[in-house]
């Protein structure tokens, strides 16, 4: 799998590149700003671009804008956005149309090498990786009449992992249960929340997120 990296901190960029190479991914290009990133993405057409949100010149959300541009221009290139902090508002923006081939993770996650490499790979293959922090913000949101209150503890765990973009197999591995059991939980959750069960994982993510974000 081929990766282009963009981060204005050379130290961090080199570190991430080393991690990814060690995990068996191929880093084909590195960029220090959004313009450089777009140039390299157009040239290399990688499977995934790993992009830091804050980059020169304004150090605000150049990375996010570049990410949107890549998705518009080159739909085959997946994008994983890294940020010093995560906000539901950004996730909502990024996921506006589709969760396919999209990741939004806290930058800290790179230290968990295996999980991070797995997330890059998942996004590169067209899947979704949403930071647990965003998911917990959505799940932790207090509501006046909380429909999530009807879920069992295990169902809430499954819902959280679904929202992060994990497949049933990954959820089963995480919770140390059978895939069959996970499927049962998913069906139960969809029934309780009145959602129609989605097919592919990234469609399921979108359905769950829209539900969580829009729930009163």
């Amino acid at each position, binding site marked *: 799998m081929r990766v282009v990296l963009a981060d204005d901190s050379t130290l961090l960029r080199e570190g991430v590149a080393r991690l990814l190479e060690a995990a068996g991914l191929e880093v084909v290009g590195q960029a220090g700003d959004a313009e450089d990133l777009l140039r390299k993405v157009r040239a290399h057409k990688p499977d995934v671009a790993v992009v830091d949100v804050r980059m020169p010149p304004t150090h*605000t959300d150049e990375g996010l804008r570049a990410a949107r541009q890549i998705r518009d221009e080159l739909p085959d290139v997946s994008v994983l956005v890294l940020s010093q902090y995560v906000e539901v*508002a950004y996730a909502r923006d990024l996921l506006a149309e589709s969760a396919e081939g999209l990741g939004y993770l806290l930058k*800290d996650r790179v230290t968990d090498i295996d999980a991070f490499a797995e997330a890059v790979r998942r996004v590169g293959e067209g899947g979704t990786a949403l930071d647990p922090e965003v998911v917990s*913000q959505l799940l932790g*949101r*207090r509501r006046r009449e909380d429909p999530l209150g009807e879920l069992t503890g295990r169902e809430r765990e499954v819902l959280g992992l679904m929202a992060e973009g994990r497949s049933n197999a990954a959820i089963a591995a995480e919770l140390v249960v059978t895939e069959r059991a996970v499927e049962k939980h998913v069906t139960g959750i969809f029934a309780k929340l009145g959602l129609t069960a989605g097919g592919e994982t990234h469609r399921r993510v979108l359905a769950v997120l829209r539900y969580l974000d829009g729930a009163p």
Partner: protein
Amino acid sequence: MTADTPPRLTSLGRALAALAVLAVAIGIASVTIVLSSDHTSSRGFAAALILIAGWGFVGTGLYAWYRRPGNRTGVLLTAVGFTWFFQALESSDNAAIFAIGAIGINLPFAILIHLLVAFPSGRLEGRLQRTVVAGAYFVTVVLQWLWIPFVNPERQGCEGCPENPIRIEGQEGVADAVNAVQTAIAIPVVAATIAIIYLRWRRSPPSERRVLTPVIATGALAFALLFVLLVLDPAGASDGAQRAVFIAAVAAFACLPFALLAGLLRSRIGRDEELRSALTAENEQLTSELRAKVEELRASRARIVEAGYAERRRVERDLHDGAQQRLVALAMSLKLARSRLEADPQTSAELLDEAIAELGETTRELRELARGIHPAVLSDRGLEAALGALADRSPVPVEVVGTPPERLPAAVESAAYFVVAEALTNVARYAEAEAASVELGREDGALAVEVADDGVGGADPTAGTGLRGLADRVAALGGELRVESPPGGGTKVRARIPLDG
């Protein structure tokens, strides 16, 4: 112009109107007395002179009084007018009325001297002026009273005058003596008056002189005629000559009020002083208001500076106690792990795991600290996203409505954000609320922010530094912050932040 409008307009106006009515009545009575007199020669002419001068003085006096209530000239003019009518009483065929007229007949001249000496400010200045005026009143009041009981009108050359009802018989010599003293004092008094007004005119700058000239000329003429009259009698001039000079003097006096009024109204001295005192009063009030504002500003600026220092101390402490301590501990863990790498790989691995966990905590702490200093989502995405994030993190359900979709000035967004953040922190800590709401809206060029909860209320906005600091922050932008928190009735924090700064 404010100086032209007296502050007690209505009460003063009513009093002056009453005086005017009184003057009209007295004038009509005076004319009646003069026209029906047995002993007054050329009654029509005398009545006309009395009426023109009397009403002239009263009318101009009341007008000047009304326009310049702070200047005594109007009062004096009015007094001259009223006392002028004493002359008419002397035409009365009734002995008592005739006597009253005789007592008061010279009083208007003393008041006129007072008026002219004090003109145009209405105040006497210096010993000479006071002495002259005192002399005038002494002659026309004290000596006049002294003279009356001894005078025999017939002997004074008045044919057909009534008898003096309080006359002490056979003492004409005393009357003559008093009369001589009166003349002896009156001559220098009148001379000094003429000198004073002439010197005043001489010393005035050309602009003032133009204003003073009609007054000075008329006054000087009137008093010169009076002076002539005073010296004619001891000089033994004929009654006819004295009569002619007297009529000329009275005519000159009759013109005087109008000259005085014109002079007074055109005089800048009186106006300047009133203007100055009005301006001084206004100025003092403005100054004290300004001083209070400056004091308020100084206090709030001091609090803002102090809040800035306090915030920096907090950040320093958080960094020092948090991230820095963790990094030191981390360095120790890593060194320990390094030293046991070969001898005890198991412990070494555990130490490394600890270090990794420690690092995660450090990053999380730093992120929270940075958010507290400035929420990046606010500058990146604006209020709606930032307030949404605050609501998401609140342990109490929060509904946010009315956030303007467009971007607002950074200082306004920031102030609104921190108002909501602090208010929601207080809701979570103290309110014991079931729910809270955040409502924003634009009103009259300002952003209105209201955070309300259904909790226990009773919050004291002056108790903590949080709300006080927010109030200062909002005030620095020209806005205001109010807290309503009746016990048991929930808490409402309202801020109004002007959008134009």
